């Protein structure tokens, strides 16, 4: 006699402990196995692109803070770079270096959050791994507070440079962080990467091949974990990235383990970049003298940057007025979800939560 069974549809999210905000999955389960999965997004839609059309160019910066709220610095950076290209102004050297330092600190912070929540989704550690990650992130946020007075919604970068020069106490804090962070990263690696359970849970799960990743136009750590050495910081340097040396980290597997192993290694490279910037930065102005209110000549601009989650760019179209005619946001998180179904179908309930965590997406950026 065979038991009659039927698949069951479960709504995971929008209210669920590990859906990175308000992501919703409509999953068809056969027991614990995933038969089908359908993403439902839009719960955090705030109409940023439309709002940008109603504001002056310099006012849009605060809107970009709210896109990927764990990586506001790089959002600012992507937007102001596009603006600068549109009105064709040059940023002073010190401004460029400060931007690079801030962006790399933001990358470390964002990767720590990504890795922390990924591990929280692996279950337990009783919160140890998450708290270890957040402890270091806290120090970065403290430094952001020194730079601009805000911790999350920074609005630090301005068109033509940065808000203001770093205060005196910023540099010793940065030095201390640079000295201590490698030790903390080692501690984290010992706790996590040498854990057999972590490896058993994540290796060879939800593999994305290099071809698949390229076809879906994935970028960032997810693409590099599949073995494609593509990093905009190296390929099309912006700000001070042409002045620094760093390695583009790739892994071969394309599985969950590789995706967050790549992130941990990128933290190391980011520290290397900050170290060089710290060494090379010279005094001078941090911001070119540009009026806050300007009317760019009709045209368009797009400058992609390597945000912590992948390629981020603002496609700006100007019609000669004080506000952008169109502001299209190419957000990496949204595009990371392209291979969602291919990654999750066929795995188990416990796996899909972890695979989702390995994408390290952010709903603020997906829904915009």
């Amino acid at each position, binding site marked *: 006699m065979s038991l009659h069974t039927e698949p069951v549809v479960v709504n995971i999210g929008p209210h669920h402990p590990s859906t990175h905000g308000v992501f919703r999955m409509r999953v068809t389960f056969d027991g614990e196995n995933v038969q089908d999965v359908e993403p439902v997004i839009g719960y955090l839609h705030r109409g940023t692109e439309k709002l940008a059309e109603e504001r002056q160019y310099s006012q849009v910066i605060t809107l970009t803070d709210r896109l990927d709220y764990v990586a506001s610095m790089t959002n600012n950076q992507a937007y102001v770079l596009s603006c600068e290209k549109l009105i064709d102004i040059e940023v002073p050297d010190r401004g460029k270096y400060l931007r690079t330092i801030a962006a790399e600190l933001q990358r470390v912070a964002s990767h720590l959050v990504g890795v922390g929540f990924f591990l929280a989704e*692996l*279950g*337990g550690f*009783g919160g140890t791994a998450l708290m270890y990650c957040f402890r270091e992130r806290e120090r970065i946020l403290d430094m952001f507070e020194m730079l601009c007075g805000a911790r999350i919604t920074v609005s630090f970068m301005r068109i033509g440079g940065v808000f203001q020069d770093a205060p005196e106490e910023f540099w010793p804090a940065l030095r201390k962080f640079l000295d201590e962070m490698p030790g903390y990263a080692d501690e984290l690696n010992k706790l996590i990467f040498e854990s057999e359970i972590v490896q058993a849970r994540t290796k060879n799960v939800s593999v994305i091949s290099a071809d698949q990743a390229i076809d879906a136009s994935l970028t960032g750590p997810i693409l590099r974990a599949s073995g494609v*050495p593509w990093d905009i910081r190296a390929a099309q340097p912006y700000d001070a990235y042409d002045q620094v040396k760093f390695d583009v980290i790739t892994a071969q597997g394309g599985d969950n383990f590789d995706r967050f192993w790549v992130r941990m290694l990128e933290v190391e490279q980011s520290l290397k970049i900050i170290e060089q910037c710290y060494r090379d930065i010279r005094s001078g102005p941090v911001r070119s003298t540009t009026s806050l209110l300007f009317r760019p000549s009709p045209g368009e601009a797009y400058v992609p940057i390597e945000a912590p989650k992948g390629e981020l760019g603002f496609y700006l179209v100007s019609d000669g007025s004080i506000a952008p005619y169109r502001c299209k946001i190419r957000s990496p998180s949204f595009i990371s979800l392209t291979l969602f179904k291919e990654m999750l179908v066929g795995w188990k*309930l416990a796996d899909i*939560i972890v695979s989702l965590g390995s994408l390290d997406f952010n709903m603020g950026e997906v829904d915009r």
Partner: protein
Amino acid sequence: MGEALAENIVYRHVYEFILSVFGSELAWLAYAIATFSVVLLVVNVLMLLATFYTWAERRLLGRFTNRLGPNRAGPFGLLQALADAVKLLTKEDIVPRSADRWVFNIAPIVMLGSVLMAMGVIPLGEKTFLADLNIGLLYLVAVSGLGSIAVLMAGYASANKFSTFGAMRAAAVLISYEIPLVMSLLSITILAGSMSLIEVVNSQTIPFLLVTPLAAFIFLTAMSAELNRSPFDITEGESEIVAGYLTEYSGMKFGTFMLAEFAALMVAGAVFAVLFLQGWKWAILPSHIWMLLKVGLFALLATWVRSTLPRLRPDQILTFAWKFLFPLSLINVIALSVQRLLLADEFGNLQQQDMWLMVVSNWILMVVAVPVLIKITNRKSGIPFGESAKFHVGKGV
């Protein structure tokens, strides 16, 4: 039961006090009240321990994770458990409309009941126990299985898909881990020659932790699976299935579940102390203190493991039980049986020098059997136990 109780100090005092007041014609009343007060005492000791442990675990976990832990209510936050209880009592008690009301409501009671019943046979100190059952170990197994039934009841009655997931996982874990657990208890029975917990303690001239480390390891692993502790906490798995079988519970029903869970941990600690750490026996300090310390040691270990390990996937947990723990426990039982056959004298007793011989041979057995079994399991199941991180870092552009 009567004989054991009569030796209990509390029982004796209460009994004699009532007799002196009412005279001997009310002996039945004195017997009833004295028995009841002893039971009340044991239950409350357990409940107090459990509430204290909720505080201790949160403080410890806080330290493990670079936090302070609860430190607001009372000195060192000691009254946190009280504050939690007050909060839970004032919460709305929600029963989902589509829930099976009856089953939904009695599930927490069954859960707590199973834990309290287990206390019946566990000695808390010298001559401090409610009953000396001659099938104590069997009784423990039977009663602890009831806890998982309560989880199943809660998950089924909640009419929530996440709860159902939790309940099904609990059932799977129960079926798989009960076997190694019973096997490890069996090896204790072989060593002690009795199923009575008092006899088990008395026969431990050397702690059984030394005599049969494999059984202790299997017991600890299987017990943490039965208790839904990390790394086997799939039943509640908060990042996957929200709160598992607890998803729909609120207010004091939720509190009862949590209390029962922590009390179960305390009971498991007491059982571990009795079976492997000579129970209440040791030098200098009074026996009850030793028992408490040993339970505390177990609790510390549980908290430590919880803060160090992530969760395994359900299928990996089952694979681990059937392909690794089960053969290991079989090997252990066979080895102990053979040792006993060879070493026991004509009355079936083991002398202390024989015990030391068993200590040596069993440690050797553990050192040999575990790696070999890991190798075999590894090849067959593809779960990379013991595989270290190997990674290639390529350089791009």
